[in-house]
């Protein structure tokens, strides 16, 4: 146990690390290309990852509550596939959108019921449902790709309001909503308390199961919104949509200072980590690093971020020398 002042000093460490890394990434990008610091360019780059940032917001809350969801990429794919199949079958467009959104919330609910209702560990359970949902997407579309969306639906990333691309605006609005939900409502305080100490939360009379189930369902709904945004941006839906995106989504949440042990995490940190990911990926594209090679950098970033977020400076040692320590989770 660290003493109180040290733990308060450490409580902002991850967000400070992210801020520092953003400055480093901006400097590195500016050295590579003089156009890197152009705001329009960076906002446009943000549209490529806004969907993942959106899901990372709700995933942050799931992780804060002490659970995890590795099925996010599969939920994005299956909800988009259900939406696409409806569009393909000439179902009225509004109904197709509703079906996509409802399927996402339903998948999240399935995760929630398995984890909460059946008491299964969320890590392995959501690996299982990830395979299940991705498999259903494969069954639904097979090798087909659906492209016959109405013309007005395609190109959400070309729409800009006040010079800001629509996906980035949606992400910012969602981040504001999520910040209020997690940091300024009773529900949010319950989420944090459950993550800090589930037994204390139970004795405080909080319905832990209900809160967690809502979080999983909300996560599924966010995945469905992300799936719809991707179908609009790409203009095509295939069963392998967002394949492997769980790495980036979890990376955004954890780099943003969310503790995998639960009980700690901020929406502000996640939003900042999203921009860090945008800068890193854009920088790697500028440096002509192939997508597969970027996996090495992303995986290493995840490890470094976890280690960095646990480094804390303990001011009070016996001989008065500040000490750098690695906190245990």
């Amino acid at each position, binding site marked *: 146990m660290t003493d109180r002042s040290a733990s308060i000093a450490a409580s902002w460490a991850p967000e400070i690390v992210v801020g520092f890394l953003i400055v480093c990434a901006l400097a590195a990008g500016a050295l590579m290309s003089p156009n890197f610091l152009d705001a329009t360019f960076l906002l446009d780059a943000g549209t490529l990852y806004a969907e993942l940032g959106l899901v990372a917001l709700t995933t942050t809350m799931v992780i804060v509550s002490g659970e995890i969801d590795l099925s996010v990429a599969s939920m994005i794919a299956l909800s988009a596939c259900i939406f696409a199949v409806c569009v393909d079958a000439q179902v009225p467009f509004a109904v197709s959108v509703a079906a996509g959104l409802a399927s996402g919330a339903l998948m999240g609910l399935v995760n929630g019921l398995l984890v909460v209702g059946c008491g*299964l*560990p969320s890590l392995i359970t959501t690996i299982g449902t990830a395979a299940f949902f991705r498999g259903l997407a494969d*069954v639904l579309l097979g090798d087909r790709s659906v492209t016959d969306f109405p013309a007005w639906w395609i190109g959400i990333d070309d729409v800009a309001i006040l010079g800001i691309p629509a996906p980035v605006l949606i992400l910012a609005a969602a981040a504001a909503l999520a910040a209020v939900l997690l940091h300024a409502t009773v529900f949010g305080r319950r989420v944090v308390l459950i993550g800090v100490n589930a037994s204390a939360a139970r004795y405080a009379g909080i319905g832990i199961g209900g809160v967690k189930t809502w979080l999983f369902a909300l996560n599924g709904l966010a995945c469905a919104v992300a799936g719809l945004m991707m179908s609009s941006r790409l203009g095509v839906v295939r069963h392998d949509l967002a394949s492997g995106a769980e790495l980036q989504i979890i990376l955004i949440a954890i780099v943003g200072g969310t503790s995998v042990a639960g009980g700690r995490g901020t929406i502000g940190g996640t939003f900042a980590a999203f921009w860090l990911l945008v800068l890193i990926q854009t920088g790697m594209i500028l440096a002509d690093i192939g997508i*597969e*090679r970027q996996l090495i950098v*992303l*995986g290493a970033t995840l490890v470094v971020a976890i280690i960095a977020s646990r480094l804390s400076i303990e001011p009070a040692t016996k001989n008065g020398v500040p000490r750098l320590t690695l906190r245990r989770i």
Partner: protein
Amino acid sequence: MWRVRSALLRREAGAAAAVGLAIAGLALAAPRFFDIATVQIFLLAIPLVLAASMGELLVVIARQVDISIGSILALSAMIAGMAFRDIAGLPVWAGFVLGTSVGAAAGLVNAVLVNGLRINSIIATLATLNVFRGIVFVISGGHQISADQLPAGLLALAQTGFGVVPWLALIAIAPFAIAHVVLVHTSLGRHLFAIGSNPDAARLRGLPVGRTTGLAFVLSGAAAGLAGVMYVARFGVVNPSSAGVGFELSVIAAVIVGGVSIGGGVGSATGALLGVGLIGIVQVALPMLNVSHVWQGVIFGFIVICALLVDRLTQGGLSRLTRSSGASA
């Protein structure tokens, strides 16, 4: 002690019953399943999963999970394949030693992340899953290894054998035998069970917790590395983007279906072998029952969830998990 032993027997009995049911069902639905040719397909389908599951088994018993084995398989397959391609006259056994060592080295990276830096094993191996995949691309330059670049002696391991049993299946007996002996007859095995049952008590008892779980990750990497060389022999092709993708799901499914509790401390090599058998039967039976291969992901995900539910119902490791988290809270 007696109760522990009878519980183990019961859990394996469940897996054995599932295998028996599957075989009986197939006997009715597709008598073709018992042709010599089909038996050979089955014996060729399971060695990879069998080898890797024996390593994963040790990790899961120690209450950890290794989800990077698909990429370790690809890394070992690619390095062994490149060695066979570039070094004329490289003996087949040397390729096996090389691939297994590569896997062990990758497992050592996981061990350092999980034990040295104390990162949650699923997050750490999610990171290395992507890092190792990226390394496969870097060392291969994105080019695949094809059969004409490989020695005939290696490919013969899958095409010839002892009677109807392919050499690959005979090779896979080795990791099974090693895992069985380690778990039943060595102090390492007893330590793994003790750590998985109660890590805190194991530490207080003075067991080398870090070294033992670290060794489990190294052995898991070595087993996946061995599976990598077997992959080269069986398929004759190593593609950097598709080799071993999703392999971890089959292996984890086999281990959990085999009655190994995801909560740690419970499991046996025989149980995992039965789990591998069930997964193999499903893989081979789907095409015979005219079920399209696209259903495979759905079915595997479903099997994982069902196995978790059975584990929960038999109160395997999960009651232990809840108890220990309640005690530390």
